[in-house]
């Protein structure tokens, strides 16, 4: 507790409990989130959404809304013939012009003096629809006579201003396909002594950031766009907004106020952002658009729902032989990052355990349902749920202890998988052993199994699951870089300008810490600037657990350059080789004796005012030295990989179906702990998010409509429900990682549901392959009043 580091004087900061730099402001209510910012002259915008699930828009009458006093602009697609599409597949116009494909669809928008006026104006807009048949399951969507969601080419102006086909018609409702294979599955099957097959069904959940979505758009007198945005990828969006608006990217500045939660939800551009920009352009006023909570539920992305058929085999000696997987992803009406989650799912399917033969095919199918985006874990919760169920089932089939079975097939350091991932640091087997030992997994599993049929209606169960996830950046874009500018003032204070965004995860603290470690400075002397694309250097964005690793390495590089510069100058002054000097405790010291030569601030001042005017500003840019995957998805996706094993202990009340998560024991290979406080917070928060996915959260979509768009019926985990959490870190000191660390942001959420599923089986002998484990779902499964998920006939 008391190792809270206030200065660098008591040695290294690495592994200490460092409080977040922004925490005092946040705890005092002084932090200004986007909701708290008002610009002079600002108008308020509201969006009219569809009252239909699927319909042609015959006409829109905005005259009454326009006539309402206080209304400055009402826009529809007809007002914006130059609209260009957004999204991963560019199949999505911000304002819909021909038809609506889901109830979230944006039809018109109003800018007015107040939110109340904007809200009232929406009610005066009359839309005449011609209803179309709705397609609300992937099965329906795949049938040959199903209505086509995107049956026509989408035409929009290209960079030359002329009409181009920007998204081609889909005549089979297929939005995206992925296929990956290694080895020969037939060979693997032939070598198998045991084969198991299941259909898994993973449900809709959504991010529920406590701060709802919002944006403020403003054009300056020279038509430059300033966007106050919650985005997690400011530099990529700068370019995307430029394309969308037909603007020079250099004229777009994105400012990021502190963000009320991200979790991947802010990786894509959503219609409300361009809509606010259109309104700002038309009204020549700043326009602020903030969601209500209901709107946040309806118009935010979800986690990708997945229907998955998996077949796996092993020999009687417990060696995995093959894995064959097919998935159907309900793509919803438009394509966002959810459709690309197979990219991550295939890594778990092919490489969490050693599987010589593997086949994975997947299709994302358009429907009139909500669409999925990226969400902490990015497909891996879904893939891990299935893979880890099969690890238990295969172990049981051959009569082997499930821990032993996993250890036998787990990856080792140095392994290059058939998919081409190179596991340079890998603490997987340690994670398995440590988690099992600390939780007494084997003893409890046997004891619970023996008690399964006793008279007690409350059953206890223990279950294990592990995960593999990117931990050293993710090569999704052509670059995975992050820039840093480091500026030292003549009082020895550092301003670190980084492209990496802070979304609550603690990146600014860990970056400051890494810089202090290099320069021998106390944390209080580093200020991090990370929120303005006009000021900060380029970065891909905050996603894929990459910031500590990528931005951390970048910051270390910048700090080392500054240090080199200072020590080189000091070497000349003190007539010693630079290698013999160091910076420590805000001084330049002799490395060997620790003798203080001069105060750092004083020395820097002397550089500023010397005839060489050395200003000690430096910059550094880091790009991890690994190749991209090829078109067959072979190769590394990350410079390092994170591993974890979690053991869940549950109580299942067979009278009610209520599953209580009693304890999670987690062993996480994090490379190295940098900020113990921060990493514990990430793990604990991730575990509870995983708990919500497993047990409480269920975004109910019926006939294309979200039935529970509120916290009353969409149940986030509350404080009394959290499990006991015993988290231990396996430090493998990654060679590429900053101070040996790997990324960890997503890891803790990934295996909870899989572990809970195995624990429920251990408790009851019932294998449930569909999430969530809400009381009724579990009760039905326990009392044979539910059908396990079935594969899609049309597929």
């Amino acid at each position, binding site marked *: 507790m008391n190792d809270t580091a206030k200065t660098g004087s008591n040695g290294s900061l690495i592994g200490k409990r460092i409080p977040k730099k922004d925490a005092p402001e946040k705890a005092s209510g002084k932090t200004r989130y986007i909701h708290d910012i008002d610009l002079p002259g600002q108008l308020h915008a509201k969006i009219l959404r569809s009252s239909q699930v699927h319909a042609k828009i015959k006409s829109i009458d905005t005259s009454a809304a326009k006539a309402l006093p206080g209304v400055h602009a009402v826009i529809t697609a007809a007002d914006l013939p130059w609209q260009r599409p957004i999204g991963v597949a560019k199949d999505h116009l911000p304002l819909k012009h021909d038809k609506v494909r889901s109830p979230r669809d944006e039809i018109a928008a109003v800018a007015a003096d107040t939110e109340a006026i904007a809200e009232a104006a929406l009610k005066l807009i009359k839309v005449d629809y011609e209803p179309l048949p709705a397609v609300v399951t992937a099965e329906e969507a795949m049938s040959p006579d199903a209505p086509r969601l995107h049956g026509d080419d989408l035409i929009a102006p290209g960079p030359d201003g002329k009409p181009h086909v920007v998204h081609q018609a889909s005549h089979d409702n297929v939005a995206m396909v992925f296929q990956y294979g290694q080895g020969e599955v037939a060979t693997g099957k032939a070598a198998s002594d045991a084969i198991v097959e299941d259909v898994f069904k993973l449900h809709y959940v959504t991010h529920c950031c406590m701060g709802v979505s919002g944006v403020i758009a403003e054009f300056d007198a020279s038509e430059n766009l300033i966007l106050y945005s919650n985005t997690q990828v400011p530099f990529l969006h700068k370019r995307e907004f430029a394309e969308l608006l037909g603007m020079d990217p250099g004229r777009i500045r994105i400012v990021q106020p502190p963000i009320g939660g991200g979790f991947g939800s802010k990786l894509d551009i959503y219609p409300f952002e361009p809509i606010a920009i259109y309104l700002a352009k038309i009204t020549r006023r700043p326009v602020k658009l903030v969601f209500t909570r209901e709107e946040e539920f309806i118009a935010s992305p979800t986690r990708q729902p997945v229907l998955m058929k998996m077949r796996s085999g092993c020999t009687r000696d417990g060696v995995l032989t093959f894995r064959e997987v097919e998935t159907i992803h309900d793509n919803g009406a438009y394509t966002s990052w959810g459709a690309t989650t197979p990219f991550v799912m295939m890594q778990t399917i092919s490489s969490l355990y050693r599987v010589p033969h593997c086949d994975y095919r997947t299709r994302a199918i358009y429907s009139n349902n909500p669409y999925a985006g990226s969400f902490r874990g990015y497909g891996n919760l879904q893939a891990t749920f299935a893979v880890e169920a099969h690890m238990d089932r295969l172990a049981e089939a051959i009569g082997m202890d499930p821990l032993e079975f996993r250890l036998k097939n787990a990856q080792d350091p140095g392994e290059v998988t058939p998919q081409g991932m190179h596991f340079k640091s890998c603490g997987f087997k340690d994670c398995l052993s440590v988690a099992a030992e600390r939780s007494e997994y084997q003893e409890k599993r046997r004891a619970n199994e023996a008690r399964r049929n006793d008279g007690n209606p409350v059953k206890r169960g223990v279950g294990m699951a592990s995960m593999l996830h990117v931990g050293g950046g993710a090569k999704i874009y052509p670059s995975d870089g992050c820039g840093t500018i480091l500026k030292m003032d003549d009082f020895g204070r550092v301003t670190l300008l980084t492209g990496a965004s802070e979304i609550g995860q603690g990146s600014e603290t860990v970056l400051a810490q890494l810089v202090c470690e290099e320069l021998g400075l106390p944390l209080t002397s580093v200020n991090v600037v990370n929120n303005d694309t006009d000021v900060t250097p380029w970065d891909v964005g905050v996603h894929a657990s990459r910031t500590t690793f990528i931005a951390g390495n970048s910051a270390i590089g910048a700090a080392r350059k500054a240090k080199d510069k200072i020590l080189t100058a000091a070497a000349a002054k003190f007539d010693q080789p630079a290698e013999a000097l160091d910076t420590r405790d805000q001084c330049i010291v002799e490395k060997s004796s620790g003798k203080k030569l001069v105060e750092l601030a004083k020395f820097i001042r002397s550089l500023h005012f010397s005839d060489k005017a050395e200003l000690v500003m430096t910059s550094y840019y880091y790009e991890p030295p690994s190749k991209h995957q090829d078109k067959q998805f072979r190769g590394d996706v990350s410079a390092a990989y994170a591993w974890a094993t979690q053991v869940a202990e549950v109580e299942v009340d067979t009278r009610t179906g209520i*599953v209580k998560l009693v304890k999670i024991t987690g062993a996480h290979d994090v490379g190295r702990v940098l900020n113990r406080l921060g990493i514990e917070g990430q793990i604990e928060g991730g575990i509870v998010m995983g708990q919500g996915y497993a047990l409480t959260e269920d975004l109910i979509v019926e006939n294309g409509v979200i039935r529970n768009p509120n916290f009353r019926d969409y149940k986030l985990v509350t404080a009394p429900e959290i499990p006991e959490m015993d988290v231990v870190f396996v430090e493998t000191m990654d060679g590429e990682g900053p101070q040996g660390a790997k990324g960890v942001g997503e890891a803790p959420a990934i295996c909870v549901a899989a572990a809970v599923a195995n624990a429920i089986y251990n408790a009851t002998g019932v294998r449930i392959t569909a999430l969530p484990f809400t009381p009724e779902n579990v009760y039905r499964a326990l009392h044979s009043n539910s059908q396990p998920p079935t594969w899609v006939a049309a597929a």
Partner: protein
Amino acid sequence: MNEHLRSTAVEREPAPPTPWGAADEIATYLAPRSLDAALEALRAGPVTILAGGTDLMPQSKTGRARFHPTLMNIRRIPELQGIGEASGMVRFGALATMTDLLENALVRSRFNALWQACDCFASDQLRNVATIGGNICNASPAGDTLVPLLVFDAHVVLASKADGTLATRTVPLRDFLVGPGRTSRRPDELLTAVEVPLPNERFVSAFYKAGARPALDISAISIGVGANPAAGALNDARIAFGAVAPTAIRAPRTEATLEGRLVAETIEPALKAADDEISPISDVRASAWYRRELIRNVLRGMLENVGQC
């Protein structure tokens, strides 16, 4: 093809007559400081009554509730405050909050089921504000306090000045609740208090609300049980259910089955009677089938527990 041809309209609340919704509805705001003034206002015309506001505010914001031209805040009326006991009758002022009830020694010692219901009511912030009168008048089939109040044979006291003079009537809670969100309160009446006969000291009671979390949950079902147990039998057995009928209900046939007999011998017929007495629906929170299963399984455990007292 036919199976695709389902209705595509999104079911939403009908649009209000003016685009301003709640902002356009309230012509007059009153905050009377006496019961008399409040009753005069009620006599004068349609009034929306505001107490804690914890249901009214979100209902009005989402358009689920409409305001009458007069919004009357009754929180400053002294006659509606307080909890007290006189000659075997406990009176809960309509403005008693859940926190008031939780902190009341009499509730703690003699009305266990009510205390338990208040304990798992929403959250501390809501318990500090939500009133017993509001919870009753809101008449949710899943209203947390209704089930234990039914067990304790609560009556509501209604005051009015229909003909210019103060009139009160006392109505059994079970008659007061007439449907989801509907009570037998006349528009000119104000619920001033809830009266509950003090049960004898041997009377035991319990409340159960289905859910994985202790509170902040709208129950899939709730059950209240009360009785004077004696040597494995239940006397004065009282059973009430929430969220399995249009209102919270007492279950007289279940009670009759249990009355005076050994629990161990009557439990199966009692469960059968309970199943006959409930009429659950399926909604976003639970299916009718699951609600029936919960009632059966949980009631069994509760009866066994009471039987062992």
